[in-house]
């Protein structure tokens, strides 16, 4: 929507153009500097990475990109992360859509308590409930045989709940901005409220839902603290697994960088594909 986003048709003055050039160049430099370091370090042999920094690397090698799969079961961690983050995202978004719909479209007792409580969970320091949550999972496992501890399922439950509050709260704003006439018209046509939600509200809210999905995915993708205690070798995620490149006596800097780049590529590509929705989507939720 460039026409809407564009400012005045009037030609911008030189002062603005120069400021823009300078600001954007500096920002791009700031953002890309570590990325450059990652790329150049990932292409060096180990002996050279730990030496004095040089802008132009000597002795380029792609060996680290082969070694990363041997040092650490990177492929398995990657699949685990995809499964965990993917499932957490889907479930989180579905649940958030239901909740946001209820809050946005109905008035009922306890609504305010619900929204305030949900927001307040953002204030919990993770350290406060890491061990208790672990205990609860173990106890549920002992009494029902449901293996939450050490399984992907437990991690999915945890992460989806982590992203729920912000997602619900963003979607409420988004749904509020969709005219009620739309779903009411659908109900007049004989849809129940649930069907109205899926037939009318959700399609109209696709951008917002995409935005929430990206947020939920990134939350699950990057979490370290809970994953380090609640996973085992089979279920370990990338965020924790990358630490496997530093052992007691060695830090394989070049491999850490190579592995990070490799696993980030799909995420960046996903970003690119979703960007247009993301930008349009954050708007309504955020403006609320």
């Amino acid at each position, binding site marked *: 929507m460039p026409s809407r986003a564009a400012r005045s048709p009037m030609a911008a003055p030189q002062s603005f153009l120069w400021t823009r050039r300078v600001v954007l160049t500096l920002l791009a430099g700031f953002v890309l500097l570590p990325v450059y370091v990652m790329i150049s370090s990932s292409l060096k042999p*180990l*002996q050279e990475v*730990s*030496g004095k920094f040089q802008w132009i690397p000597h002795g380029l090698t792609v060996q680290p990109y082969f070694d990363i799969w*041997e*040092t*650490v*079961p990177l492929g398995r961690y990657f699949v685990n992360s995809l499964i965990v983050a993917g499932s957490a995202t889907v479930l989180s978004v579905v649940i958030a859509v239901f909740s946001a719909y209820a809050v946005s479209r109905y008035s009922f*007792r*306890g609504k305010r*308590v619900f929204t305030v409580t949900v927001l307040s969970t953002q204030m919990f320091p993770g350290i406060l409930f890491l*061990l*208790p949550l*672990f*205990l*609860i999972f*173990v*106890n549920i*496992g*002992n009494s029902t045989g449901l293996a939450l*501890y050490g399984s992907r399922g437990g991690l999915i439950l945890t992460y989806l709940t982590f992203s729920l509050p912000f997602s619900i709260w963003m979607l409420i704003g988004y749904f509020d901005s969709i005219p009620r006439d739309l779903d009411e018209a659908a109900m007049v046509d004989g849809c129940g409220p649930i069907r109205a939600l899926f037939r009318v509200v959700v399609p109209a809210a696709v951008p917002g839902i995409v935005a929430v999905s990206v947020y939920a995915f990134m939350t699950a993708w990057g979490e370290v603290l809970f994953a*380090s*205690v609640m996973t*085992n*070798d089979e279920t370990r995620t990338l965020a*924790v697994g990358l*630490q*496997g*490149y*530093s*052992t*007691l*006596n*060695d*830090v*394989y800097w070049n491999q850490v960088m190579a592995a990070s780049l490799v696993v980030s590529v799909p995420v960046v590509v996903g970003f690119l594909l979703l960007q247009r929705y993301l930008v349009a989507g954050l708007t309504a939720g955020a403006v609320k």
Partner: protein
Amino acid sequence: MRHLRAAAAVTLAISVAAGVTGCGGGTSSGGGSNESPKTLTYWASNQGPSVEADKKILAPELKKFEKETGIKVKLEVVPWADLLNRILAATTSGQGPDVLNIGNTWSASLQATGALLPWDDKNFEAIGGRDRFIDSAVASAGKEGEPPAAVPLYSLSYALYYNKKMFADAGITTPPATWDQLVADGKKLSKDGKWALGAEGSNLSNNIHQTFVLGQQHGADFFDKDGKADFTSDGAVSAVKQYVDFMAKDKIIAPGNAEYAQNQSLTDFAKGRTAMVLWQAAATTFASQGMKPEDWGVAPVPVPAGAPGAGKQTNSMVAGINMAVFKNTKNIDGAKKFVKFMTSDEEQKILCKTYGSIPPVKAAQSDPAFSAPELKVLRDTLATSAAPLPQVPNESQFETAVGTAVKELFADAAAGKPVTTDTVKARLEKAQQTMQQ
């Protein structure tokens, strides 16, 4: 109505919470059982170059064990970054492995939780008796006077690694045997952007290992007989000051080492930027950094005067890995069999050779592999002049408190701020006050 419901919800939540806390712990009934005699879960620590390498190293041994006993061992190699937290979580919930590796400095702390099987005479008998192990290693497995909480598995000690060429260039013919010699040699070596000694100033554990040994040499134990923190004794202050002074006063450690915590000092050594490091089994790291075995030599860590020995002649902490059994295991006999297997002469030889460590089992040490120059130094040190770190329940607190004090002193020294007996004492005083219990 509304309040009533809220109250009911809170009551429910609290009762659930109380239930959780109530049955939080593992079984405290002791002994373990033999409900599932055919399987074992084993958490190994990461000893080799990577987690994957460890799996490959251990797999054939576990196969052997399965063939002998019919017990299948489920192995998980836990990276060091996660190991202690995983053990804590397992201890808290009772949901953990049957057998596990622990860093030997954690022994007394984990012993205090009561979650580990105590190795009394009867249990030791099941694995061939306490006498099979060297004394210093057993002493590093728990509080003195109580049955150890674990059994020594791999042992190590500190040694002085030096760069032969840099020594020759500086006209030094023999590695230093006393600290005075080390400083004198160090001043010859520290020039033209090169430095004599490497240190890991921001690595808390390493700081503790070094200052503990210096403390022993000054007659300081850091804990009194009742296990109370005693960080500010003259000996402790002198020890810490001596270590930091290598950078602050003697200027034989590069200031940049103050921030090292990722083994950068080994990299510096391998690149010929520093001439000496005090380390435990660094050979494989030097090799992976491209250094040839003939380029470096190994000598015992210096002492104030004379030869290394017990007491004030101590020149290393007892480093190593111990093997423990969770009390609530469902295969107690199998767990003991597995410990017996892993500490058998044969397995000790195989595994210690692979990992470059010293077998804590006396009989296994006779293998010629452990008489190679590097390992001989480590072995002799372990046998004659190594002491375990304080075996107190709050050992990890000690490492954090004093290790941080040393780290901050290094930071001061590197920034050119003065390091005096008073500033050292003040830091240690503060460290001591944060020790609870």
